[in-house]
């Protein structure tokens, strides 16, 4: 009779509460520790370059002049390309699987996409370097150059490697995560809502765009930021195909670098204190960028919660 009365909770509950609290605490402490350690180890570079580090384009280990701009630019551009490709695609995949495909097919395609998520990033990188980049260079980029060569985006020799292939590889890596979440979101739309829409004479397209997507808007944003978080810090696959040059160019064909690829390339052989400290500061910048993205995501979700229907 005491069960569920809420008066006496017993030791089990106290223990459980303490354990969950401790887990949450350890995690927060670990995050704070990472931030603190990054800031501490980059103090040499912070003292030397100040805020100028963020908008200096220099990266010269010989003259000891470092700046993060080209790495920040590369991180943002490659992530942007990835999201521009991955989000519409995964939206389409999820809608197809939930709304249109026969259940048996839906299940198998779903498995295949989830399998894509299990492939290690280095495999994506090697596939990108040896298979995908050559394909881009031979078949896609010359075509783009022929018809879009007058814009600044498709200038320079079509090498295959560069910002463009990094963005596309990232899109492929993000795709399974975003589409899996989106599929869940769509399948949670109560059938009664959809049936009501159909009952009022709406087409499949109208039902999808006006009911399913709106209902799941919040979850879709969650999927978007999950993908973004993965793309922004991806290291190995990007390092293989981005071309690794500390420069900023509007052309998607040209070689660039991201924060993560710079760290992967240069951390092992950096023995000079200021150089090492600048690399750590790059890590700090990435940490701050990820934090910023999460904060924006949080506020956006809150805003969406007010303007659109749906739960969660």
């Amino acid at each position, binding site marked *: 009779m005491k069960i569920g009365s809420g008066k006496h909770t017993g030791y089990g509950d106290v223990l459980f509460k303490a354990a969950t609290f401790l887990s949450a605490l350890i995690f927060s402490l670990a995050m704070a520790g990472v931030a603190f350690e990054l800031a501490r180890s980059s103090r040499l570079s912070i003292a030397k370059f100040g805020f100028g580090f963020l908008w200096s384009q220099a990266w010269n280990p010989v003259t000891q002049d470092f700046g993060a701009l080209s790495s920040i630019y590369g991180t943002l551009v490659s992530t942007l390309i990835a999201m521009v490709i991955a989000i519409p695609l995964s939206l389409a995949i999820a809608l197809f699987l939930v709304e249109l495909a026969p259940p048996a097919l839906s299940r198998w395609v779903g498995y295949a996409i989830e399998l894509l998520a299990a492939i290690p990033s280095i495999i994506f990188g090697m596939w990108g370097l040896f298979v995908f980049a050559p394909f881009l260079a031979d078949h896609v980029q010359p075509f783009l150059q022929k018809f879009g060569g007058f814009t600044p985006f498709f200038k320079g020799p079509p090498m295959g490697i560069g910002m463009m292939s990094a963005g596309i590889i990232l899109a492929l890596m993000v795709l399974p995560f975003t589409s899996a979440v989106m599929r869940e979101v769509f399948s949670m739309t109560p059938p009664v809502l959809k049936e009501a829409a159909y009952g009022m004479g709406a087409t499949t397209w109208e039902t999808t765009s006006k009911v399913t997507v709106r209902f799941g808007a919040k979850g879709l944003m969650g999927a978007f930021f999950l993908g973004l978080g993965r793309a922004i810090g991806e290291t190995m696959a990007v390092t293989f195909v981005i071309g690794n040059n500390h420069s900023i160019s509007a052309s998607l064909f040209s070689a660039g670098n991201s924060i993560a690829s710079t760290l*992967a390339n240069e951390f092992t052989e950096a023995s000079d204190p200021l150089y090492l400290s600048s690399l750590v500061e790059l890590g700090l910048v990435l940490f701050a960028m990820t934090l910023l993205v999460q904060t924006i995501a949080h506020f956006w979700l809150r805003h969406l919660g007010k303007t659109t229907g749906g739960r969660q």
Partner: protein
Amino acid sequence: MKTSNFDHSIKALAIFTLISLMLTVASCTGKTDRAENLILNGAGATFPYPLYSKWTSQYNELTGVKVIYQSIGSGGGIAQIRAGTVDFGATDAPLDKEELDRLQLIQFPMVMGGVVPVVHVKGIGPGKLRLTGPVIAEIYLGAITRWNDPAIKELNPGITLPDEDITTVHRADGSGTTWIFSNYLTKVSPAWAREMGNAKVLAWPVGAGGKGNEGVSAYVQRIEGSMGYVEFAYAMQSGLSYALLKNHAGNFVAPSPGSFFAAASMADWENAPGYRVVLTEQPAEESWPITGASFILLRKEQRNSGKTRALLKFLDWCYRYGEKSASGLEYVPLPQHVVDGIESYWSRTLAAGGKSLWPPRGEKGDKE
């Protein structure tokens, strides 16, 4: 999460330390068997890793002494030997004398290798294109941008060069290969010395960066009209078209163990402070101008004389018998007189408790 490389090396280090500790304890408590339980730890340069790992496994089969080499990069190798967490460090770019003294380390070369310019130009096979250091410097500086530039044409009168852009490919990761390459260009091109300098990572004005030798050779293989520089073994294995280089004596030479050896033979090893010998642009008739050595670092003050002796014996074995596997991997052994010089350097500098640790005297007499 962003420092996973670093995390891994720390984790690996912790595991290795744990294992070696356990084995040390085991060797102390069990019967004091000599070689079987001995583990020597080394860390550093990635460039000689294939060679060192082959040597360590062969040596283990022969003697039971286990040598573990972690290729975590020269920077990590220097940091670890300094902290005393490994028994030897390895670096591609030699430290200078002041730094060695400051860190209380000694340094000597272990093996040689060469850096080779490779090109991907239609109709040009291996050993056909002739280049000079200053021309390579201008290409990498972005001053020469096309293959049919007069400066390249002048060197290659018999070859039709295409009217094509040159795409330069460099190492994106910090690397001893880049260090040797830029050391050479600094010597032969004032423009390079002024604008770029000599380091393991440079601020490249043009071109694309590949990760590792395999990354650079993959890019060169892919990109029409490209030029890169790779370690000799990779140039041979990838089947890329290497270029001939004009050396200090004015001859155009091809990269080969013979031309690396020629470069080493003329160097003044004995008088270089801290064995800081750089083999680029050597005067011999046949010498390959971009030759370099990879170095081993040891602590001056040795704490465990038994371990140090075992380590020196291993290194001595590598000098004497490691040649065959070295040649198989396209590395080049040091000339004999240099090896003799290095070993007498050991006996002069390495001591524990006032006693010299090299050469090993009677096997039984040298127990601590």
